[in-house]
């Protein structure tokens, strides 16, 4: 007997008890739908986070001054002026694993220009900053060496700033005042969107680090050229921990820190954030697996139950089939195919329900949804496996009936 004939017999048997078949499938339908929906929502959120992390760069290390101690109270990272612009350049020069090292000065202030004014953050940066922080110039151009050397009053505007000052008009070539200092806008930055912490990364102005120091923040020459932070990008394929160790070693030398003394700087990287995310997505995955296995188990037991009932109800049919020549394995195949068909139809309905509820959730809640082929394939495979697993016992029971006893069954 071929499989096609078995499927036809199975479909007929399932059609005869439509309501019963539908109720039996319910467990699988709900299980599969839940899995599909949760994967769609979960991986949508996951990929949004991943995009953000990628935007920031997982191979980014932020170097900040260490914490100071004031009367026994530690003041937190960045509270000391121990980091200099030269530290940043030295890292670029001496640590081979470093792709870009950009010392940065940060300031905030009122910006006036175009048709309005806006309070924002500005960064005085070296040209390596663009590479280190993955900034792309959207319009106009970036800084040149001459701009840094001459403390040129040129600025690049983040998308939010550009829009708030100039609306739809092109800001390139316009003059703005940052803390009353006139600047020429030489370019705009490509939009980045929100950061992991929910901050608007595009609410920013970039200017040469020398300009920020000399003309805006007003730190005079002759003093140590301290910086707030250094953004360091590690080359692809280089070990983050090794690069970090090398940077630490270099800075300890430069700062003449004795072996017993603590660092006067802090190194941070996003791999911590990443591993936290990985942890939470692992937990999410486990939760999903738990929900899936419980509902699929319940669905499977439902199928087993109904198949046992079906075998009992159709004992005479089994007897007759054996009397006209069905072998044990023909009967086994027939009931196994029936269980698999039941599970697979349930699985397909579950996929339909899961996909439509995912889409609905995406529309209604505005969540990012990611529907892949893998969870669907997984659901189909799982349903079939459940059909086989839970259908096998009843089917074997049917196949082991003795012809005459089955035929005489009342």
């Amino acid at each position, binding site marked *: *007997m*071929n499989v096609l*004939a078995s499927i036809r017999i199975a479909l*007929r048997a399932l059609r*005869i008890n439509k309501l019963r078949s539908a109720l039996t499938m319910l467990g699988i339908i709900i299980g599969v739908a839940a899995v599909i929906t949760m994967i769609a929502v979960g991986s949508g959120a996951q990929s949004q986070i991943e995009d953000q992390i990628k935007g920031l760069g997982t191979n980014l290390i932020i170097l900040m001054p260490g914490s100071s101690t004031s009367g026994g109270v530690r003041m937190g990272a960045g509270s000391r002026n121990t980091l200099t612009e030269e530290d940043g350049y030295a890292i670029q020069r001496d640590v081979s694993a470093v792709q870009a090292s950009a010392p940065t000065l940060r300031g905030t202030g009122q910006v006036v220009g175009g048709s309005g004014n806006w309070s924002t953050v500005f960064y005085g940066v070296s040209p390596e900053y663009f590479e280190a922080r993955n900034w792309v110039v959207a319009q106009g151009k970036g800084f040149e060496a001459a701009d840094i050397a001459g403390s040129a009053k040129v600025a690049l505007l983040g998308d939010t700033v550009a829009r708030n000052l100039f609306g739809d008009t092109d800001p390139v070539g316009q003059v703005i005042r940052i803390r009353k200092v006139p600047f020429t806008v030489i370019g705009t930055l490509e939009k980045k969107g929100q950061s992991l912490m929910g901050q608007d990364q595009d609410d920013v102005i970039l200017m040469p680090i020398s300009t920020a120091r000399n003309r805006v923040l007003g730190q005079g020459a002759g003093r140590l050229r301290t910086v707030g932070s250094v953004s360091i990008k590690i080359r692809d394929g280089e070990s983050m921990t090794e690069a970090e160790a090398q940077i630490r070693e270099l800075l300890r030398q430069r700062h003449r820190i004795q072996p017993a003394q603590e660092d006067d700087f802090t190194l941070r990287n996003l791999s911590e954030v990443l591993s936290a995310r990985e942890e939470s997505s692992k937990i999410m995955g486990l939760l999903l697996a738990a929900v899936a296995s419980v509902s699929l188990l319940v669905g499977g037991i439902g199928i087993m139950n109904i198949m046992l009932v079906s075998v009992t109800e159709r004992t*005479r*049919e089994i007897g*007759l*089939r*054996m*009397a*006209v*020549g*069905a*072998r*044990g*394995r*023909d009967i086994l195949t027939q009931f196994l195919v029936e269980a698999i068909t039941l599970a697979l139809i349930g699985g397909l309905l579950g996929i339909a329900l899961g996909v439509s509820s995912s889409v609905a959730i995406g529309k209604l809640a505005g969540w990012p949804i990611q529907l892949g082929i893998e969870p669907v394939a997984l659901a189909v495979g799982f349903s079939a496996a459940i059909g086989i697993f839970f259908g096998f016992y009843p089917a074997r029971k049917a196949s082991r009936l*003795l*012809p*005459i006893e089955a*035929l005489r069954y009342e």
Partner: protein
Amino acid sequence: MSTPLITTRELAKSYALGGFTVQALRGVSVEINAGEFVAVMGPSGSGKSTFMNLLGCLDTPSGGEYLLAGDRVSGLGSDALAAIRNRRIGFVFQSFNLLPRTSALENIALPLLYSGVAGEERNRRATARLAEVGLADRGHHHPAQLSGGQQQRVAIARALVNDPVLILADEPTGALDTQTSCEVMALLQQLNAQGMTVVLVTHEHDIAEFAKRVITFRDGRVIEDHMVERPKDAAVLAAQLRAEQVVEEARP
């Protein structure tokens, strides 16, 4: 003399029932040749059905031997027995045993499903058998849409579809009225006339009179085995009954 189609030697069957055993067959030795029409007679509980089930390989004996066309059957595995039931034996049951909600044609084609015959060929052969039992126009009817006699004829067509060497019928007329019984017996006689071996169980003398040989059972043993001089012709009797009925109905 050629090998008998059926040979049983001291065939025995006992059932364990609670604490004690029931001896349903206590050593039955018979030979049935190809082309015979045998009626197995006897009171209820005498072991007729048990004997038939053993001949049909639906059950296995607890003692003795059974040879089908010279081949030992006792001791074969369940798959081999299934193959014998499928290809060499056709069953007709008292309760028809047709699959419900399944067309007459599909019911007839059922044995072919298990001998690996392709769909179109199955349909072709089932259609031919249906015509032979005179129900060519009922192919798509379900059992519930057919009369008892028609259902039994579908069951006979099913028994014939795989060209068996032997038809086994256990009380095939038990659920039918006299008229329809005669028609079914006429069909079996016709098949026998074409060379088919038929073994039939009945407890009615009227039905046994259509056979060429009667074997009588009592308490699991054969107590009598004789040839019938001139078996009655079921077709003639059926025609007579039909005529009488017409007269009956015509009467005011």
